[in-house]
């Protein structure tokens, strides 16, 4: 088939020497991304801390006092 002829005979091989540069860049990039945590990554845990403290109080039998954030 013409389509297969084009695919078989028209393909050019990529230069092998560039492969090293590209793969090294990719490896370097992924290492940097893995090591670089942002503050927002940690802040996402903040709401759960309050819930955990509340559960701790409830389980230990302590009085739980919730003060409203906004006074009416």
């Amino acid at each position, binding site marked *: *088939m*013409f*389509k297969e*002829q*084009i*695919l078989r*005979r*028209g*393909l*050019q*091989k*990529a*230069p092998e020497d*560039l*492969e090293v*540069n*590209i*793969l090294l*860049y*990719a*490896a370097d*990039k*992924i290492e940097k*991304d*893995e090591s670089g945590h942002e503050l927002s990554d940690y802040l996402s845990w903040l709401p759960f801390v309050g819930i955990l403290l509340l559960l701790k109080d409830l389980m230990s039998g302590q009085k739980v006092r919730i003060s409203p954030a906004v006074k009416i």
Partner: protein
Amino acid sequence: MDWTDVELISAYRSGNMDAFQIFYGRHKNSLYTFLHNKCREEARDIFQETFLKFIDATAKKNLTNPKAYLFQIAMNLVRNTSRKAKIISLNDEFDIPDIENEEIESVSEEEFKESLSNLAKDKPLFYDVLHLHIFGKMTFEEIGKLKGISKDTIASRYRYALKYLKDFLQSSQLHVKEG
């Protein structure tokens, strides 16, 4: 098991370098062929720059079609480099018989490569479609989304590109016989 491109890039984002290497191996020759035919002298530089920009992009966003994104980067870089691509208007009803299933005999590999280079120079928009469909294994719909035009127009450009190649190869055969 064959991973999809999306799965490979997702694995790479999670730190799996082997996944990126598979993605690179899967698309390197197709991308290089595209660049070689579009702009032979700058092909190496643009090939490398395309992948570096692609790697940068994977860190910033989720890519729904990594292969299309890779070729989009390459096309933008080619356009910035040459700015020679002419806008060819083509009617959606442009009708050329389907010659995809035909075969052209006694054509050497060199002649095939030359015909592709000529198509890329003479009719760059048609070449893009042919390349993305045959070498990039993209559907007309995917190419249409990438180019921002209807899939019918893409299909017409594809058929035109095939006809161009067939005519080119047959005329070169004629020259050989006459010579």
